[in-house]
């Protein structure tokens, strides 16, 4: 039972129900003149060339009063206080963990910014410092919130809520942070049977919806019991749907993910990433989203 799908490459086109990108003046590539009006201020992603405000990155033009910025489509994560992130521990240091959050610099998670197992509230002792690796070690994934931004742009994270902490079994999908739609909540228990954390940093975590969380563990306990086959299938389908949506540059949030999931159901999970299937289900998703809005 072996499958191999070989084919000639085709020129990929982005399917969209809105105006084609060439007619949209708010989409620019580096070197495009945004305006020659000198009354505007030069924001991120722009520079002034010969008195003309010019784009330095490919993305969407945004205007706030007199300030013009270009938000790049493909970018590292520029975190802000309150953002939900999913990150991977790269280093365990004294009193802090270093975390890869797809930012330009590694983020830090201070020992004093995590809940201790059992939810104990007390000063961190030297003993805690020595057992840091028992809680979270290199390679582990965590979900966290941005607590503050240092002057060099590096992020300080915290996990002082039961919804944050070490992640257990599941699948990580990495996409561009610009495709994550900002929402009230980035944690969702999807009705299709799996849960999702849409990190603002473009790291998306898919995991089986758990029953009653073991609150005593304070976010450090991870179950290594096998995940059931139906749950796996849902997670794999969601994973491929996320990649399909990202490939067609569709904003990710609970509704778009769910609509894409529903649109994909007539296909086998492993077929979703074939170009023509991808195009088809993303098209269906966009139609559903439009219908829901209108």
């Amino acid at each position: 039972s072996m499958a191999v799908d070989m084919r000639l490459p085709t020129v990929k086109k982005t399917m969209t129900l809105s105006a084609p990108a060439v007619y949209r003046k708010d989409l620019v590539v580096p070197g495009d003149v945004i305006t020659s009006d000198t009354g505007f201020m030069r924001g991120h992603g722009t520079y002034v060339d010969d008195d003309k405000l010019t784009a330095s990155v490919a993305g969407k033009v945004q205007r706030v009063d007199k300030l013009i910025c270009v938000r790049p489509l493909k970018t590292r994560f520029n975190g802000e206080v309150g953002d939900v992130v999913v990150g991977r521990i790269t280093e365990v240091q004294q009193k802090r963990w270093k975390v890869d959050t797809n930012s330009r610099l590694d983020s830090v998670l201070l020992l004093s910014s995590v809940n201790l197992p059992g939810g104990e509230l007390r000063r961190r002792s030297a003993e805690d410092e020595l057992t840091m690796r028992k809680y979270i070690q290199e390679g582990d994934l965590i979900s966290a919130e941005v607590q503050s931004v240092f002057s060099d742009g590096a992020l300080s994270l915290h996990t002082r809520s039961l919804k944050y902490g070490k992640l257990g079994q599941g699948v990580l999908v990495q996409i561009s942070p610009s495709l994550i739609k900002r929402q009230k909540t980035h944690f969702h228990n999807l009705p299709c049977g799996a849960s999702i954390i849409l990190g603002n940093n473009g790291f998306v975590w898919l995991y089986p919806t758990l029953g009653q969380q073991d609150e005593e563990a304070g976010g450090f306990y991870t179950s290594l019991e096998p995940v059931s086959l139906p749950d796996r299938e849902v997670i794999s389908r969601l994973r491929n749907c996320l990649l399909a949506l990202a490939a067609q540059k569709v904003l990710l949030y609970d509704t778009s993910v769910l609509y894409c999931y529903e649109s994909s159901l007539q296909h086998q999970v492993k077929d979703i990433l074939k170009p023509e299937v991808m195009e088809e289900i993303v098209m269906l998703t966009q139609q559903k989203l439009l219908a829901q809005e209108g």
Partner: protein
Amino acid sequence: MATVQVSEAEKVYILHGIRDDLRVDGRGCEDYRHMEIETDVVSNTDGSAKVTLGHTAVLVGVKAEIGKPRPMIPNEGYLEFFVDCSANATPEFEGRGGEELGTNLSNVLYKVFSNKHSLDLHSLSISPGEHCWVLYVDVLLLQCDGNLYDAISIAIKAALFNTKIPRVNITSDDEGGKEIELSDDPYDCMRVNVENVPCIVTLCKVGHRHVVDATLQEKACSVASLIIAVTHNGTITCSRKVGGGSLDPESIFEMTETGKRVGKALHAPLMKLLQQEESLSKKRVRVGFLC
């Protein structure tokens, strides 16, 4: 080699998935990812091919040059392999970072082709003992997303299929010296018979099972892989174990059987695609690198 990190819990998840024949991307243990193949992509080569497998991308160029046959085999031409691990593929290849991997890959390629079954080297002979064709097979890694060996072998087969070697006329002058003359007509060329060129199948042992076309995440869960080069009729021309771990004889046997079956099955669709592409000739839409 491009490596990724996975946590213990992720490993457990991947392992159980493979045990149940449902991998993270929905594939079964013997499924390949979506593969795209295009030949004749580099104009200054005699044959070339680009293969993408998942996000792995390799480019192979073949150049034919006239050289001197090896002394022990005067009536055969030969192949030279070079693998370039571009720093475009991963920052780890920067400087001399990709050298070791490149040497390993080219050593395997020499091994795969060092037999009478893979390629008819007699056809590359021009005049025994004096002149022969040398095919320089240059592999460039453009992106690494796991399973380099398989992608490279398929790209090589495609590039060799695409290779057009000019015909030569040998004339002898009055003093008995020989003169080699290349045909002026660009369409007057010789093709390489690639029927028996093997494809490499990498079998990655993960837990108690093995998978083909492992992703980087799956590879991170594995301690050892088996590389098997298989021709279209199931002849194994090379097999090699890679990775730090060990394999027990029983799993080597099982993996070889799977490799043989999977490897055999790769050739037919590949040849069909190459012939289909060639039959399009001028109607073919070239995609190249801008997509």
